[in-house]
């Protein structure tokens, strides 16, 4: 079953085309990532999916319901964590959850039961009664996610869930998202952290300037556009032809300033080759798995030079 179906949706703000013929299909139970730099149109796309921004053209169905026709019915079944926390600072986490539960028309005793479940699930217990303004950024973010879960959503939308958080908090949040996935929740998230997308998402769509440039499983995108291994080192452009001469390997490479990234199935022979050329003064070489960051760079920023 398809949970979110976006068909050729565009959004224009004045002269600016924020989203350009976006089409997406998110099957039930998957975690889907929208990747792109700030300003790529990710948040606008999300707002259209939960029905607060109206598309200029195109159609969106969520749970099979046309969002333009019945936004209430759709939003009753989903949860959204906005990029900016929308907590009531004077109230405690418990009271925030209570206010939010009422937006969904939850009543006692269900409301209190759900609040204590979420306080446990996001480990907010130690601070449940303190005013939110006294909580750390990590606590506030966890509470923001708790709010969006109050109605047991079938679809959870996370807009930049871990931006600005320290690594320990990010890891903890990722594990909560995995728990939700395991329990059958469909997740749609946006991020500009490629590692986050790679860890959490089965499928990602890479967005730049309002358009989907490519879409697929992270591993497949890496293999299609680049290769599983990356060798990375410094090398001046004029050095390059001498360094690579005599190599029979197909080389896909990307250059950012002096830094060269070379993508291959197996980096061993390339390293041997470079070490051999470099006799004496050995340059610093890094071999690492290729990641979505490379794919993203290849697809958007820097030109990908192929040498077949």
């Amino acid at each position, binding site marked *: 079953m398809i949970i979110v179906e976006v068909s050729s949706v565009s959004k224009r*703000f004045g002269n600016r085309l924020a989203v350009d013929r976006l089409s997406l299909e998110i099957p039930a139970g998957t975690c889907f990532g929208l990747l792109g730099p700030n300003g790529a149109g990710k948040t606008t796309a999300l707002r259209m999916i*939960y029905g*607060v*921004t*109206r598309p200029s053209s195109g159609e969106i169905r969520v749970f099979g319901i046309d969002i333009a026709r019945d*936004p*209430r*019915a759709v*939003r*009753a079944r989903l*949860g*959204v964590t*906005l990029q*900016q926390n*929308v907590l*009531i*600072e*004077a*109230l405690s986490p418990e*009271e925030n959850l*209570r*206010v*939010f539960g*009422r*937006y*969904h*028309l939850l009543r006692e005793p269900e409301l209190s039961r759900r609040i204590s479940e979420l306080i446990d699930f996001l480990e907010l217990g130690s601070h449940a009664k303190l005013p939110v303004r006294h909580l750390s950024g990590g606590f506030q973010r966890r509470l923001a996610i708790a*709010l*969006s879960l109050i*109605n047991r959503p079938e679809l959870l939308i996370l807009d930049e869930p871990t931006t600005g958080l320290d690594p320990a908090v990010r890891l903890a949040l990722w594990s909560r998202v995995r728990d939700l996935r395991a329990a059958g929740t469909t997740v749609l998230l946006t991020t500009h952290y490629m590692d986050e997308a790679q860890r959490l998402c089965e499928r990602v769509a890479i967005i730049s300037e309002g358009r989907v440039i490519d879409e697929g499983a992270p591993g497949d995108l890496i293999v299609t556009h680049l290769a599983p291994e990356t060798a990375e080192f410094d090398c001046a452009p004029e050095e390059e032809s001498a360094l690579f001469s005599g190599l029979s390997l197909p080389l896909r490479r990307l250059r950012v300033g002096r830094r060269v990234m070379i993508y291959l199935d197996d980096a061993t022979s390339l390293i041997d080759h470079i070490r051999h050329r470099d006799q004496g003064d050995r340059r610093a070489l890094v071999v690492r798995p290729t990641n979505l960051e490379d794919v993203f760079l290849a697809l958007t920023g820097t030109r990908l030079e192929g040498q077949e």
Partner: protein
Amino acid sequence: MSVSIPHALAVWRRNASMYRRTWKWNILPNFFEPVLYLVSLGIGVGAYITQMEGTSYIAFLAPALVCVAAMNGASFEVTYNIFVRLTFEKAYDAMLTTPIEPDDVLAGEILWAVTRACIYGACFYVVLTLFGLIPLPSSLLVLPIIPLAGLLFAAIGIVFSLKIPNIELFSFYYTLFLTPLFLFSDVFFPLKERLSEPWLWVAEALPLLHPVRLARAAFRGEASPILLWDLAYLLGASMLLLFWARRAVRQRLTN
């Protein structure tokens, strides 16, 4: 899409749960303010005025100041407080991720502003009772006028709040709109004794004039046909402004 009452009440309850934590401090000024006016103007200035429209000056002021209290209660809520919820707290962005729609936000906020107007107005009424300025039972008729005055000023204020780009402009609203209304709406002196005929017609446009006239009639227990016009103005202007506010809320919250 039309208003869903349960969702509008959820918006109302959000504000109520915040007010509940601070009401003890918030409500005190609501009692002090009328005392200050009554002592300074009613008793102080009033000592030099033998009669105003056949009553003591303090008795002339009393019903009008109930309406001023309602106006202030509603206005503060739909100006500064709404602006804070809109821009800083992003409360409406949060609500719109749930089944709440812009119409529910508007209905809930207006209802809350009317609630605040009632709290202000009722406190004033209680103080007047302590001063022995409440003719019973006729003055009880002022009680339904309080929410009507609140509704009108909530509607005016919310349109203003949704249309202005920054919080500084509220000082214009207060000094160039609410303060002149306060001073020239029959509160301190009867306009009809000081203005010439054509100006009296212009004065009929002033929104505070109508609840004041109704409140004063209630205190005196006198009915007259002009009160129907006052009631029609209160309801008609509120409806028109709410219609406008509805469009403004949608534009502001969904784009």
